């Protein structure tokens, strides 16, 4: 039942995913995730660690 991909195959799919994502973003379809501290499905310990490591947004 598993679907198996080589790195090359997966990256090629990824390249096409990226192209589609860019076109979707040009239509205004963008995911803007909330800051780490508001991502309440993460455990408090994980939120604290991510915030400590990467700052309040948790993103570079």
């Amino acid at each position, binding site marked *: 039942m598993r679907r198996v991909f080589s790195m090359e195959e997966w990256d090629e799919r990824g390249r096409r995913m990226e192209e589609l*994502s860019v076109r979707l973003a040009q239509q205004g379809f963008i995911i803007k995730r909330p800051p780490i501290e508001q991502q309440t499905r993460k455990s408090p310990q994980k939120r604290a660690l991510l915030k400590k490591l*990467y700052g309040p947004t948790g993103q570079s």
Partner: protein
Amino acid sequence: MDQPANPDFKQRERIAARVSAAFKARGYQLVQYGGATVEQFSRGRYTTSDVDLGFIDAAPPLEVRAEVMASLGCERGTRLYLLEGVVVDLGGHAELLSSRLVEISTPDGTLLLEAPEESLVQRVLMSVYPQEDDDQKKAALILMTQALAGHLPLDWNEVERLAALPGFKIQSVVSAYKKEAEELISKVT
């Protein structure tokens, strides 16, 4: 002190494969699940900042987990580890609903990912329960658009099966989102 940059999804992919390979050498198989997998399936458009891994069969004893993670250079921990700037959340047995996993052969070892169908249905559920969540809805729409475009391997019959399971019962939401995804695709192709 400046905050270090959050590693990108490709680095998280490499780390997940390295950790998986280290446990495989001890006879344990890991699978990546949750938001970290959505990140892989969305090519980093949905970011999680960490890597969630669980064991396909029984999880190893804590001592073995600690030994393996220490062999990779991690400080002793119980669940959360830091490896080359990437936070690794090493859970127990992964209770998966679908066996249609994705297996990627990477230079760092084989990486197993939760079924895209399961990733999708989980995001759809989180978009409406316990309250509406636009972030999760967009994640679901991204997965759907990539699947409709033929980039993400996804079996819609499996999606329907999962969506109908007790605890989900979200077939109507899946159908509505699929229509939205089809409209999105029609605008860009």
